[in-house]
């Protein structure tokens, strides 16, 4: 059997987070009634002229700076002609020859811990199309043009990826970056990030690229991985049975987990690109770029490094905690208030994210803002573990109460529920003595050297004190009483 090398390039369309459309003043809010946000410009009425939204430039420049790209001081819009009812003008305004962002690269971390650099070819601004509904209209198609004119940044990679895993890692990185920068809300369920995957295979060790197919409109990371794997298997099967790959556009069907041909490149329309006559070239200055740079938040890679350095976290913990800006901010508040970075990392990762995961919540700004347990309260709770007021075990009880909104202030809850840890030897000694007296057999075995039984004695004392005894104190007392 031949060994094949997989070659993947991605085109990622990300919706920019703006109030209004790229070329009109219509709203971009998601979920409005059909066509209530499609104005005369979006509808392509005769005589209307597009204007350019300044925010799309800020966002495109921020993205370009985020990947170390060249920002073109002059960028030019072009007209891409095609005929389809989701684009009433009969063309899409995009940037072909002179896009705003050229070059740049990102470093992605793979599962085995290795780092792979993926080059970005370009990123250009363009407008989205409307939506077509093929069902429910008695043999006709219903068109909703609310999405027409929504600003997109199309990010085109070099064919640098060699596996579905690498492609997914790259797409995730881009998703994280655009979300960090506030370039996009990154909500994939609303189509804010859509991937087209260019896939080809070639015999291992050869240089020439094989014929590629383009799989369109994959809107989740899981589907991206599956679509690429399906396409690779299909291409291998075709070539190994003596066939040839047709250069074509394919559509991924997530229900059937397969790709199928949409249109062949050989009969594809010529888009007759030309410079958009309704818009002038856009000139920006270095001062403008510097101003955008000033506004940029800390990027994911820098944040992860800082977490490792300042909080002595391991790389994996730092990556999880820096996965979203909201989670990173939450963690840093917990660490500051609790006074212990490692403890904070542990509680946020295991307890908080575990609880959120059980309730199908992702650590987005929305969900972290909506939960009852504030970062401040969690930090105060950890401070009480640190100063010995409560044990880690009791802290989980308090955590649950805070999570369920039964309490907002850990100190008040600890006080009213009488959860304060008992560290006082005078108070604990009689209990320890009682446990020893009631378990003479275990006591004898312990004295004979079966020191593993310490856990048993501590457990008994904890049970009798409803978990409030300081376990450290208890084990010291047990040892003292048994061996003296």
């Amino acid at each position, binding site marked *: 059997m031949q060994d094949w090398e997989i070659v993947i390039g991605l085109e990622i369309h990300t919706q920019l987070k703006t109030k209004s459309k790229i070329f009109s003043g219509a709203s971009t809010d998601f979920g409005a009634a059909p*066509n209530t946000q499609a*104005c005369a410009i979006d509808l392509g009425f005769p005589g209307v002229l597009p204007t350019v939204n*300044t925010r799309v430039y800020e966002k495109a420049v921020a993205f370009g700076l985020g990947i170390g790209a060249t920002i073109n001081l002059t960028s030019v819009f072009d007209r891409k002609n095609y005929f389809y*009812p989701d684009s009433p003008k009969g063309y899409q305004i995009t940037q072909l*020859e002179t896009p705003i962002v050229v070059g740049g690269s990102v470093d992605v971390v793979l599962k085995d811990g290795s780092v792979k650099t993926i080059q970005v070819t370009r990123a250009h601004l363009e407008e989205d199309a409307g939506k077509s509904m*093929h069902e429910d209209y008695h043999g006709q*198609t219903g068109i909703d043009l609310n999405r027409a004119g929504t600003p997109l940044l199309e990010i085109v990679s070099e064919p640098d990826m060699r596996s579905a895993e690498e492609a997914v890692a790259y797409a995730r990185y881009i998703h994280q970056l655009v979300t960090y920068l506030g370039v996009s809300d990154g909500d994939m369920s609303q189509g804010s990030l859509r991937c087209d995957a260019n896939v080809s295979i070639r015999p291992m060790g050869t240089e020439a690229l094989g014929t590629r197919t383009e799989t369109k409109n994959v809107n989740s990371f899981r589907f991206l991985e599956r679509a690429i794997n399906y396409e690779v298997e299909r291409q291998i099967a075709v070539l190994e049975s003596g066939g040839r790959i047709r250069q074509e556009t394919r559509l991924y069907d997530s229900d059937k987990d397969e790709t199928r041909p949409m*249109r062949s490149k050989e009969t594809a329309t010529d888009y007759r690109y030309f410079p958009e006559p309704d818009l002038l070239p856009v000139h920006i200055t270095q001062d403008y770029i510097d101003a955008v740079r000033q506004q940029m938040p800390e990027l994911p890679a820098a944040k992860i490094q800082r977490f490792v350095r300042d909080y002595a976290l391991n790389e994996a913990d730092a990556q999880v905690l820096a996965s979203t800006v909201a989670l990173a901010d939450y963690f840093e508040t917990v660490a500051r208030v609790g006074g212990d970075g490692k403890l904070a990392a542990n509680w946020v990762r295991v307890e908080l994210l575990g609880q959120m995961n059980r309730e199908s919540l992702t650590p987005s700004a929305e969900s972290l803002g909506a939960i009852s347990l504030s970062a401040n309260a969690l930090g105060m709770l950890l401070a009480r573990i640190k100063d010995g007021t409560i044990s880690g075990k009791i802290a989980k009880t308090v955590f649950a109460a805070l999570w369920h909104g039964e309490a907002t202030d850990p100190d008040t809850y600890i006080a009213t529920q009488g959860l304060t840890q008992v560290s006082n030897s005078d108070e604990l000694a009689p209990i320890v003595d009682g446990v020893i007296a009631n378990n003479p057999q275990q006591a004898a075995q312990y004295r004979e050297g079966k020191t593993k039984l310490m856990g048993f004695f501590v457990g008994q004392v904890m049970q009798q004190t409803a978990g409030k005894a300081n376990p450290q104190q208890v084990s010291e007392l047990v040892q003292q009483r048994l061996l003296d």
Partner: protein
Amino acid sequence: MPPITVTQDLVLAVAELSQLNIDGADIDGYAADMTKVLALVEQMHGVDTSDIAPMSNPTDASQQLRADEVTEPDQRERFQAIAPETDGGFYLVPRVVE
């Protein structure tokens, strides 16, 4: 580049890409006309443009950018009053499925 002669097949291919339904009797005429157009383009290729930057717009002006504000109210009723067919807010068109 040598002059291109437009064949009947090329006329048919361009017609398909252009979504045009052309009369078979007109093909030879189109082929001749298109050959002449391409000859004119060839003639223009003779001009030396090596030190001229491509021009995307005849003026030196820069596109003014607009503030990111919603300025367009919902006028769906007015727009749909002149649409051939609508249903539940959607514009209806002949069925299109790729």
